[in-house]
């Protein structure tokens, strides 16, 4: 009998494993399976595979395995498993089913030198057939581990001894006590400690604190270590790790500013010494941390909104960043629209075409326009090139001419064809698009809102853009502060155009109960702050229990960030009893918003920030009375919700919102009149029949 041991560290392809086991069985082999099976469903499927024995390997990583490559982590948690050791000693063929289990097989094969050790199902079958052909199996346990193996193991134990001692002194129980955790800060601060030892100690303490559940303490230990380190690269790395740990937890890191400064300093120093790769890497990390969604997007406030100028100053002061932001302009200005043939308009997007249908429909049919549509996500080479921030930075720093050549090759045919390019969303593709001189093609990018809080606007060269279209004045104001290129001599024009929305269909008669139903349409982001709406509802229900809140739209995706998840968890806790009592209705996502709005007498905008809040505009068009929170990100600025909407719609607090609802609802007639006015305003201001003229002017110029 030939004994085969399969080892897996992830979900195996069950059908193929089953087929192979049957084939091995036919060859006279029996198969043992040891696997870490993450999903219970797969575990059930494996029950039907005719293994001679099946065993679940440990799944919990050991503390000191954190940060090691996956293969080593798998081995560290498996190596003391008695079932595995016994089977590995007895097996004639040991098989790794995936990359993660290779190192475990490699280690086991050093302990059982007679066994074959292979990767993959077909090689397993081939090994067994070969053994069968050779007429038998080697005697088990005939070989001791190799001398080199014994030597290496001894060395490993010796090398790890101080670490073992350190681990004992940083055990979970000690680190969980505040005194224990604080004691460990002492050596991190101590003067005269060599950098290498200080870094090693700092990392060990951070690891221990993480292990003990003191997450912020771990981040603090790394940051504290960094303050005593002079080497810019090491300092930046420690602070980067410290901040990233906090971001992973959904927390705005205390040392974010220090980390950004350190990374920028390292980028500057690297660029000056000609180490372009390192400079670009550091710059990218600084941008990623500085403009991380946990800091600006998945929170109810943002340092950018509080003081944009101060926040971006370190970036603007960085010499490497100044090189990246140096405008390169264009050799020729954009040509005027052709007069002898239709305008060739290339609409470009990367996957998110949510705001484009009306524009595409109109200009596909327009006799004065020949339209092409390019979704960068649909073409492998364009998709890769349009999401290559490191290459964009390297190219700007003078270290990646090949990237510009690639972009030239991919985009030039499109630029040669188009008279005008319209890129929707000022995100990653804007960096790619502005890597090359567009020739005489007119370039337009539309920036909606959240892009102003991302790193992407810092990686585009706006001197190669003719028009940067905004959806509202307040977003434009913020972008101008954040990106100096938007105010310089080569700045693009910055027109403000409303989104393209067909609102006509929204004006439908309301149901009789609508006047007591508040609607919040779109609840999938933290910025929508649905809890603010709940507070409005609470205040209203104190006066009149007929008020209900209807929430329309998909929930906040769990994958966005831990910060987003934290908000959602909190929100669910608050909503559960309200849903149960019927005070809140959660309708989920729908394709028929207009149909849902007939039940809603009030439409809320409770967001902390918005570009133009389309759902509110649709609600207003439907005749629901708008109640708009003065979006806090922009409340104290020259422009904001206050200047975008009629002043009467705006409120500062939940109490003021409740008061507005009660006042409007003083009589059915009053509510009805207010709704009618709102609808009239919305249709005459934001309907596509009105806004389309602005787009015509944008693309085609003044029509005679």
């Amino acid at each position, binding site marked *: 009998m030939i004994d085969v041991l399969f080892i897996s560290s992830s979900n195996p392809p069950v059908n193929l494993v089953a087929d192979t086991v049957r084939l091995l069985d036919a060859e006279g082999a029996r198969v043992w399976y040891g696997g870490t099976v993450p999903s219970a469903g797969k575990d059930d499927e494996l029950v039907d595979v005719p293994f001679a024995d099946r065993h679940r390997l440990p799944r919990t990583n050991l503390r000191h395995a954190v940060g090691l490559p996956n293969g080593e982590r798998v081995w560290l948690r498996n190596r003391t498993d008695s079932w595995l050791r016994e089977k590995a000693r007895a097996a004639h063929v040991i098989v790794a089913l995936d990359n993660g289990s290779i190192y475990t097989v490699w280690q086991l094969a050093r302990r059982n030198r007679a066994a074959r050790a292979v990767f993959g199902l077909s*090689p397993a079958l081939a090994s067994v057939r070969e053994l069968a052909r050779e007429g038998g199996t080697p005697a088990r346990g005939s070989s001791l581990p190799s001398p080199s193996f014994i030597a290496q193991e001894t060395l490993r134990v010796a090398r790890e001894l101080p670490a073992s001692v350190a681990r004992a002194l940083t055990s979970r129980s000690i680190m969980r006590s505040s005194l224990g955790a604080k004691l460990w800060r002492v050596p991190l601060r101590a003067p005269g400690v060599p950098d290498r030892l200080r870094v090693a100690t700092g990392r060990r303490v951070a690891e221990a604190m993480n292990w003990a559940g003191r997450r912020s303490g771990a981040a603090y230990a790394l940051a504290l270590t960094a303050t005593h380190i002079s080497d810019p690269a090491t300092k930046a790395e420690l602070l980067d790790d410290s901040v990233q740990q906090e971001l992973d937890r959904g927390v705005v890191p205390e040392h974010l500013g220090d980390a950004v400064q350190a990374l920028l300093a390292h980028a500057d120093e690297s660029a000056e010494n000609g180490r372009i790769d390192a400079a670009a890497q550091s710059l990218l990390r600084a941008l990623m941390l500085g403009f991380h969604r946990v800091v600006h997007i998945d929170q109810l406030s943002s340092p950018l909104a509080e003081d944009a100028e101060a926040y971006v100053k370190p970036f603007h002061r960085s010499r490497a960043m100044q090189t990246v932001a140096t405008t390169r302009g264009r050799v020729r200005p954009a040509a005027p629209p052709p007069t002898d043939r239709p305008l060739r308009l290339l609409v470009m997007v990367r996957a998110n075409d949510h705001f484009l249908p009306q524009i595409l429909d109109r200009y596909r049919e327009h006799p004065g326009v020949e339209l092409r549509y390019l979704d960068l996500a649909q073409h492998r080479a364009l998709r890769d090139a349009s999401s290559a921030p490191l290459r964009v930075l390297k190219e700007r720093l003078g270290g990646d*001419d090949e990237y510009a*050549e690639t972009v030239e090759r991919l985009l030039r045919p499109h630029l040669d064809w188009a008279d005008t390019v319209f890129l929707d969303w000022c995100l990653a593709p804007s960096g790619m698009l502005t890597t090359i001189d567009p020739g005489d093609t007119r370039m337009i990018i539309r920036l909606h809102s959240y892009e102003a809080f991302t790193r992407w606007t810092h990686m585009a060269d706006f001197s190669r853009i003719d028009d940067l279209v905004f959806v509202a004045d307040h977003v434009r104001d913020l972008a101008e502060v954040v990106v100096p290129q938007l105010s310089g001599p080569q700045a693009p024009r910055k027109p403000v155009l409303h989104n393209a929305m067909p609102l006509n269909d929204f004006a439908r008669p309301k149901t009789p109960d609508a006047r007591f139903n508040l609607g919040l349409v779109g609840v999938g982001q933290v910025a929508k702050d649905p809890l603010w709406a709940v507070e409005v509802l609470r205040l209203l229900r104190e006066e009149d229990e007929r008020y209900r809140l209807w929430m329309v739209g998909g929930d906040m995706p769990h994958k966005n960030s831990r910060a987003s998840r934290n908000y959602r968890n909190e929100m669910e806790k608050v909503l559960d009893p309200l849903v149960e009592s019927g005070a809140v209705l959660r309708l989920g996502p729908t394709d028929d918003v207009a149909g849902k709005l007939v039940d809603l007498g009030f439409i809320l905008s409770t967001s902390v920030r918005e570009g133009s809040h389309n759902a509110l505009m649709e609600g207003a068009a439907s005749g629901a009375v708008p109640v708009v929170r003065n979006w806090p990100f922009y409340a104290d600025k020259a422009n904001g919700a206050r200047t975008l909407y009629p002043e009467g719609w705006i409120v500062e607090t939940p109490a003021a919102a409740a008061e507005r609802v009660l006042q409007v609802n003083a009589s059915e007639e009053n509510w009805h009149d207010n709704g009618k006015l709102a609808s009239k305003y919305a249709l005459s201001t934001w309907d596509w029949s009105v806004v389309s003229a602005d787009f015509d002017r944008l693309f085609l110029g003044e029509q005679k």
Partner: protein
Amino acid sequence: MRETANQFAAQGWDVTVVTIEDESWELDSGVDHTLSEQVDPRVNVVKLPLRREDLETDIRGYSAERAVDPPQWVKSLRERNAESFPEPTFGGWRGALEEAVLRLHRERPADLLLTSCVPYVSLAAAWRLWEEARVPYAVDFRDGWSIDVIDGNIAFGRDSAEGRWEERILGSAISLWTVNDPIAEHYRGHYPEYADRVHVVRNGYDADSAPARPHRPDPDSGLVFGYLGTATFPTNLLRAVLEGWHLAREREPLLANARFEFRGHTGNGSQRGTNRQVEILREAASDGVSFGGPVAKADVAATYGAWDALVLIITGGHYMTSGKVYEYMATGLPIVSAHAADHDATNLLQGRPLWTGAHDVDSESMAASFVKAAHMSVESTDEQYAAAMTHAHQFARESIMAAAVKNLISELQVRKGHTQ
């Protein structure tokens, strides 16, 4: 390559083929010894001990570094390979290939070197021999290099490392072969100065792979659709085909008990015969789908002979042909196209009876094509079969290669005339 070598031998040349060892082929795409048996015995075959390290499956041969983090190790290997030659998978073979070619030339001076890609690193050996001994060379470029035949984009610019190599190689080559007109046009447009060197040499089919008149379909015991080829197409393409098959079986009584057999090599290294595509095929077993592994060359005709219709699954578009299409055409069986409508295979199939037409690949269009092919298989006439075979005959590999080799020899003579 086998047919090319045989053709040179048939025309009286002394031919040496440089390749890699059988075990190395085994590790990669697999090896078919019945195919090697058809090599003219006069051809001398030199097998170099080169193998793709990234595909190694014997874990005892791994370093600790590789075992701990295989993806990172492979990444580093590819970077090292690319330092020798801009081809991450094979670049590291450059030195050994150059040495071997120089040694063979010293032992027995060559008049002509013909290199076939992939791998492109073999171009380096051709170049080295040209530089050191001025041995003229030609390149059988197959799918080309600077054009990405899957996406239809330019794969790299002329100033890139690959671009500089390609230009250098084309600059002194006496002839450049590509498998179809779109790729040839790409090269003629990209390098107008060398346009006259570019020739289309289609893959064609081996006459002995074509079955005799296929058996009569028997719907009662179930029609059998077949796919023979390398199963490396994208999984979303495969899923769309299988969804179409599922729908067709539900809708068409002729297909209710039909089977769909996949044969061929798939995956390499640790995934040989067990890649994601095979897993997807296994999941479709309840629809009569099966995967039967590779077919030896000697059994190809019999395999086709047992099927009632063929499914041509190919990725890519305008620039892609795939060798399968010729072999499929030569069976005389109905062909279901599962590829983009704008595809070079479409150009070849145009005008052939017993073809469903190409309609891009989604489950609905595939379902309609399967239904159409089912009817073709039971309703086709001898006349249609004869017309399909006549359509195929123009692509017999032996005559294509004989003409290409003759042409190359005369190009060589012209070149010699110029230099003398």
